[in-house]
């Protein structure tokens, strides 16, 4: 059996996803580019500030890589962490690798670092769009237990391609944040089935927020990344406006208080109740066979 992507650390994912031994790290742990904020708050820092960045080979092609460590501060983006991501993307514009592959696992901005983290994430978004504008494809892989939320959720949707596993999650506010803001009647964060129906890989794949759905398997993520290396999506005002119209129509058509299953029905999926029971291959077949009213 292949190793679970979700169970690997950020560095294990890099070691297994890219060609063996090809990863060359920039700002490695021994350089100690650590957070200047955490120590002041009495919180332990990490030698890489929770993200490893560098270059590697993927199927013998040169790519730039970043992997966020979800176990450290929930993958939260602090000042240094964000600067490493931004620097990697800017360097990609200069050095022109085949693509930039982001192994995202993050709850969003690291709250301890407040404004510095917020600015950091916004700089990452800008850098992703700059890389795409320069013709460098940006891929985001999401399959860690912490999901990809907050500012990093936005970063993911700024990319050309999003690859997810069914246990990966993508969203803006996390389940607990929604419940705290709108009440348990609106969203019960302890209802795991509800959480995954609303933010999980299957839902994102059906809604079109995720382009490729794979099993929770490092080899499957590797294959998907190789296949999507040259995938570029148009980046224009027209595309953005068309997306806004689509989302507006979806919102308008959605029944009040609709659950994800009702939304899948709305998309034209005939066996919407069975989605939770299907594996990734089954979901891919279902999406391909449905003329999704995207």
């Amino acid at each position: 059996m292949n190793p679970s992507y979700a169970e690997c650390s950020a560095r294990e994912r890099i070691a297994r996803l890219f060609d063996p031994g090809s990863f060359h790290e920039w700002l490695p742990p021994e350089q100690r580019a650590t957070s200047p904020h955490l120590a002041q708050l009495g919180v332990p820092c990490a030698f890489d500030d929770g993200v490893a960045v560098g270059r590697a080979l993927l199927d013998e092609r040169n790519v730039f890589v970043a992997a966020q460590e979800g176990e450290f501060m929930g993958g939260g983006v602090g000042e240094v962490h964000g600067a490493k991501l931004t620097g990697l993307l800017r360097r990609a514009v200069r050095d022109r690798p085949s693509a930039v592959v982001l192994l995202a696992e993050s709850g969003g901005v690291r709250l301890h670092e407040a404004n510095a983290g917020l600015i950091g994430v916004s700089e990452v978004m800008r850098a992703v769009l700059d890389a795409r504008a320069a013709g460098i494809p940006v891929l985001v892989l999401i399959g860690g237990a912490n999901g990809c939320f907050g500012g990093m959720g936005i970063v993911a949707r700024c990319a050309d391609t999003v690859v997810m596993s069914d246990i990966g999650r993508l969203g803006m506010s996390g389940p607990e944040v929604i419940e705290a803001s709108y009440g348990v009647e609106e969203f019960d964060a302890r209802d795991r089935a509800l959480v995954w129906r609303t933010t999980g890989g299957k839902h994102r794949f059906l809604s079109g927020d995720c382009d490729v759905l794979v099993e929770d398997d490092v080899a499957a993520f590797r294959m998907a990344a190789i296949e999507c290396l040259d995938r570029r999506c148009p980046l224009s005002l027209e595309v953005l406006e068309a997306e806004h119209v689509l989302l507006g129509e979806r919102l308008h058509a959605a029944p009040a208080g609709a659950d994800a299953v009702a939304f899948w029905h709305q998309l034209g999926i005939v066996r919407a109740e069975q989605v939770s029971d299907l594996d990734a291959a089954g979901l891919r077949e279902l999406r391909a066979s449905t003329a999704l009213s995207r």
Partner: protein
Amino acid sequence: MSTAAGMERLQFTFRGGRRVGAFAPVLVGVVGSGNLEVLVEPGETASCTVDIETSARGFGQIWEAVLRDFHERHPLAGVRLSINDMGATPAVVGLRLDQAVSSLEQPRP
């Protein structure tokens, strides 16, 4: 129980080990709840130094005992260990230290 905010910084030095040959720095573990990261780098030739930053204050004696055990298992010299700890138990610390040594012994791919 101490209510003082902030980290505790500890340092230990062990002498009399066998010198380790040249190696590239190695990082094992993750700074997560109940876990720690250990960075192993070449250090002063005659000793094994250990620098610890931990969120769990007041466990200096236990750290010393765990590290002395480790140094008896692996009497290394010329090595500098740096640890960021988030409340790992002594058993987890011991396992991570052993993992760090076994990573050193494997040639880097």
